């Protein structure tokens, strides 16, 4: 498997605070990769470095080519970023949110994609006209996921999809992510604090600590390694 996304020595800072200190990681095409770590470890910044919403140095390659420009160009290149905290347009309707997800696509025929989303999330078809802000937290997270998929991305980046959601809903979201990966070969880079559930779906994982990769490897090995689990994953 070749790498769809590669980060080489990526650094980023917010003012005086250095959030990433030379992060190198690889997301093979067709796989799910998790980025784990405590609060403030730089997980979110790693995704933001990829999507161009934070200034960074170092090299990022997407499908072998250097990734450049702001978030608009990154979205157009085929990377969908679902930010932390849902990331929907709360004042717009469910349907409008989905349409916006397909904004960068050249073909404008969304019927088959809409039908596919309604298969994954049956409630969407009945509530297309509802304002996104009036949905429950879980529904908003699902809508954010569906919106990202509407763009038919080559790489899906999810930031803390479990945040503030009931365990049942978290399992449902990760089940769908896994299904998308297995059935459609969707490549996923997921940032999670809940290491247990992330390691369940991911093929490999990286653990960040104060902006550096401290451990990485296949998920199975990470799960088995008690020392890693204790000191970095907290379970």
């Amino acid at each position, binding site marked *: 498997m070749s790498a769809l996304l590669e980060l080489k020595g990526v650094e980023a800072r917010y003012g005086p605070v250095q959030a990433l200190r030379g992060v190198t990681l690889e997301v093979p095409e067709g796989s799910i990769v998790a980025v784990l770590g405590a609060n403030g470890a730089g997980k979110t910044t790693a995704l933001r470095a990829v999507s161009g*919403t934070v200034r960074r140095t170092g090299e990022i390659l997407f499908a072998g080519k250097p990734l450049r420009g702001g978030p608009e160009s990154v979205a157009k290149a085929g990377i969908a970023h679902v930010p932390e905290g849902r990331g929907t347009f709360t*004042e717009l309707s469910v349907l409008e949110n989905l349409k*916006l997800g397909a904004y*960068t696509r050249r073909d404008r025929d969304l019927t088959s994609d809409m039908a596919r989303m309604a298969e994954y999330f049956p409630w969407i078809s009945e509530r297309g006209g509802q304002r996104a802000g009036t949905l429950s937290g879980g529904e908003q997270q699902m809508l954010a996921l569906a919106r990202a998929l509407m763009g038919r991305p080559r790489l899906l980046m999810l930031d803390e999809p479990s945040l503030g959601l009931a365990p049942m809903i978290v399992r449902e979201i990760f089940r769908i992510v896994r299904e998308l990966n297995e059935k459609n070969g969707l490549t996923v880079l997921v940032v999670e604090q809940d290491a247990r559930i992330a390691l369940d779906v991911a093929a490999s994982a990286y653990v960040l600590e104060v902006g550096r990769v401290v451990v990485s490897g296949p998920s199975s090995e990470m799960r088995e390694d008690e020392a890693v689990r204790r000191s970095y994953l907290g379970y």
Partner: protein
Amino acid sequence: MADFVQQVVSGLASGGVYGSLALALVLIHRATGVINFAQGEMATFSTYILWTLTANHGWSYWPAFVVTLLVSFAGGIGIHELVIRPVERGSVLRIVIVTIGLLLLINGAMTWIWTGEVRYVQGPFPTRTIDIGGVAISLQDIGTIAVSIGTVGLLWLFFQFTRVGLAMRAAAVNPAEARLVGVRVTWMLGLGWGLAAVLGAVSGMLTAPSTILDPSMMQVVLIYAFAAAVLGGIDSPVGAVVGGLLIGVGLNLLGAYVDFIGSSLQLPAALAIILVVLMVRPAGIFGRREVKKV
């Protein structure tokens, strides 16, 4: 009764004009977070373009109207690109000061190009009246209502049913998120300025036939438009139009039936409306109250 209906219809005609200009203010406020104080002068400038085409170059009204809209659209985008964009990320105060500077600049430019001499713009609608159920209604009023409401309606369709319209709304409500789905937010803001300039041009061109064209023509109209936007809710496009119609009809009725107001106290009445709305219901009729979490 007939007189009352007449007053209402002519109030709706002025209200349509206030509503169009108020909508221009709302569009820019939603996207940029500021009131564009130059909106009135921009509208007057557009009207001068119409006057030049019709009076100086002998164009007939409607082709000149369309060309004026196109020029205004380009001008609005140009103003955003050259003057607003450099300060867009700065504080609200900075942008406001720039729009006030723009007001002075455009006003001066108009005096320089066209002199301060008063001009007359021939309207496209006949000034005679028609009889509807025993009430004499001026055709000019009906035409003004039709054009302003038609423009607003077209704009609504654009925002509601086109891809770019949706992207513009997304950019206005959540710019960071819009960029993540690939919307070029800066372009959308420029487009917003272009559309606001078009709305302003419509209101200016509809105002001109019933008054005289000079560089300060729209200054009073802008105050009524402020009142309309504040009354309807400064972030609500629907509110701007409804507010405009309410202000138009309300002031017209006050002027006609409340002796001491007459035509000379209409402007203070509009200012009083702004003041009262801001005290009693700052979000306006259609605005959502801003909830600030501490």
